[in-house]
């Protein structure tokens, strides 16, 4: 016990030197605490961000690919002249492929979207300007008339033969399209305020739909009403019941009547993606621009693309993603975290070097004291124990101060170091897990101090010291 008491008294006796050592240790341990807390907070922030954020990916026709694979054909004009027309008909990607891609393990979620035409004995379309009449169900002559061409060949330079045949395969009395999307709220028109829910709620289950105010008015529909629909293709005869759960205002259709296209038709309905299977209509048209895949992280992007190709995504389709958004947000935080680690490492390294030098000076200065203690019978092991007690006491004191100081400093440091508008401070851990590595570091430093002490003590024999003093 006297060794410990003497060690404590020695700390006071060599006050200025121990104060210097304590200050250095406190700075080192406070820096370690700050770095650990900061990295922990940054890691938690990134994890949280990754959970809420993903890389939005869309797939569409690769026009540079299309340019390289154009097919050129001769077209005879009305006046008998011949023109060369280059066309590219992209491969159609059926909805099954988009569905399959949505099951990829690299995705956080997927927004699938497709539309299907419908007819109904109970409903009628909103009256539109005749110039905006639907093409679906038109005959070949009507299509040629619509586009002002005389021959089929000319028509097929405007639209593909496949599209024309698809249009002609519709029933004449098609009312509109049912837009089936995974999350209707995220549909472009709703997300950008062109459409706004004015009554009821968004559809959540299969068989629920929302319609435009004009459509509800035309058909005298109220929330909760049910009605039956049928597929718009000539071969579709199954009848399905739908339930109205919400009514929306179509600002875009109102404001831009002249630009109204089928996509914003007043007679269209919006439903969940599950409704597509529920309806089972043969006409399923993937809304490629509205299909979004949310990839988990940047590392998964190439893997996801590879998987999508293996699932049937053709070469003529390219993948587009906003990786810059993800990186521009995550990278500064990662950089800050890495910088903090480097700073902490350098502080620890420099601090340890300074500490070692100080300890060597300290022990050498105390050579005489060690000589006296040995001369009056103190064992080497007891002198060493005294030095170790001193080291551990001072390191323990510095560790407590360092942890407290580090905790105090971490918030202002984080506010200063983290990119603006990022609330990383709220991710600073409240538990004391971080103290374990700090205590570990402190023990390491105490051991360094102790080992230096023991190394020198074992070299100092009292007579040698006294002789050199004489």
């Amino acid at each position: 016990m006297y060794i410990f008491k003497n060690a404590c008294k020695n700390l006071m006796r060599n006050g200025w030197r121990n104060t210097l050592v304590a200050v250095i240790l406190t700075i080192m341990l406070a820096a370690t605490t700050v770095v650990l807390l900061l990295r922990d907070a940054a890691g938690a922030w990134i994890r949280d961000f990754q959970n809420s954020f993903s890389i939005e990916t869309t797939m569409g026709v690769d026009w540079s690919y299309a340019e390289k694979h154009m097919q050129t054909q001769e077209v005879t004009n009305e006046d008998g002249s011949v023109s060369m027309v280059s066309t590219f008909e992209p491969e159609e990607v059926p909805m099954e492929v988009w569905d399959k891609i949505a099951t990829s393990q690299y995705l956080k979620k997927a927004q699938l979207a497709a539309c299907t035409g419908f007819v109904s004995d109970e409903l009628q379309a909103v009256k539109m300007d005749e110039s905006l009449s639907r093409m679906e169900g038109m005959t070949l002559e009507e299509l040629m008339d619509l586009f002002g061409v005389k021959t089929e060949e000319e028509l097929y330079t405007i639209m593909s033969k496949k599209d024309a045949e698809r249009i002609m395969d519709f029933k004449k009395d098609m009312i509109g399209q049912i837009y089936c999307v995974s999350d209707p709220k995220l549909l472009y028109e709703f997300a950008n305020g062109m459409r706004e829910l004015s009554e009821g709620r968004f559809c959540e289950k299969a068989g629920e739909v929302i319609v435009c105010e004009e459509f509800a008015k035309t058909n005298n529909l109220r929330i909760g009403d049910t009605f039956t629909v049928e597929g718009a293709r000539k071969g579709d005869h199954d009848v399905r019941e739908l339930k109205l759960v919400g009514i929306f205002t179509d600002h875009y259709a109102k404001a831009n009547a002249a630009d109204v296209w089928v996509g914003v038709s007043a007679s269209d309905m919006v439903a969940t993606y599950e409704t597509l299977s529920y309806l089972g209509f043969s006409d399923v048209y993937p809304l490629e621009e509205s299909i979004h895949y949310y990839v988990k992280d940047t590392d998964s992007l190439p893997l996801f693309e590879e998987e999508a190709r293996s699932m049937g995504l053709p070469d003529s389709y390219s993948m587009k993603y906003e990786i810059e958004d993800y990186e521009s947000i995550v990278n500064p935080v990662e950089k800050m975290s890495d910088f903090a680690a480097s700073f902490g490492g350098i502080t620890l390294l420099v601090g340890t070097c300074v500490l070692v030098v100080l300890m060597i000076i300290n022990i050498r200065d105390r050579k005489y004291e060690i000589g006296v203690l040995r001369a009056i019978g103190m064992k080497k092991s007891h002198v060493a124990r005294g030095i170790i007690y001193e080291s551990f006491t001072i390191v323990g004191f510095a560790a407590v101060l360092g942890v407290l100081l580090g905790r105090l400093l971490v918030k202002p440091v984080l506010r200063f170091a983290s990119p603006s508008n990022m609330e990383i401070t709220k991710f600073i851990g409240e538990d004391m897990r971080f103290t374990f590595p700090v205590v570990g570091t402190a023990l390491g430093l105490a051991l360094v101090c102790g080992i230096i002490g023991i190394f020198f003590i074992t070299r100092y024999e009292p007579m040698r010291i006294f002789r050199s003093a004489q």
Partner: protein
Amino acid sequence: MNTQSILKVENVSYHYEKTTRNVIDRMSAEFEKGKLYVLTGRSGAGKSTFLSLLAGLDKVSSGKILYKGKNLCDMDADAYRAREIGVVFQGFNLLKNCSAVENILLSRHISEQSGAKLDREKEREEVLSDLSKIGIDPSTAERKVMHISGGEQQRISIARALSHDPDIVIADEPTGNLDAENAHAIMKIFEHLAHDKGKCVIVVTHSTDLRSYGDVVMEIGAKR
């Protein structure tokens, strides 16, 4: 007066590391309890070296030093210094940053490793009382050694050597830094320790005046 032999030097030689010349050459002597030995000799004769061998601070190159019949080389030198012998060093060798009381308490604590625990407050009072007996008042006793005079430091050094009640007290030039009056006062203390307390006191001095205090006067470096 107790005159039993306690320390025996048998044919001891000593040379420093990396040299072959013996500083002490085949020396033999016997020391008894209750006697004051005065060791003299010219400078460099090996007086202090001889004391350091007796104190267990150094090891003989050849020969034997027997403490109560046991060879010092076979004993735990630390325990021997801590309990059996008290050394008054030439330069006092006190802990400068500590007070007189702390110096003496530390020596007592080192010596009582396996002894019974004492009431620390009572022990402190004992130390203060012992110091006052050799002329160190309590206020001086509580001051840091570096702030007190050489004569007082010498007394404290003697008090420390006696703090654990050793059988042997050795002193290397204990009066070297003192005036004649103080030197005689110190020698009186050693005389008292030998004759009244029954200690074996070995004093190295180059002062011819102080030879008269010795029951035995030995000249180091002289032909035996």
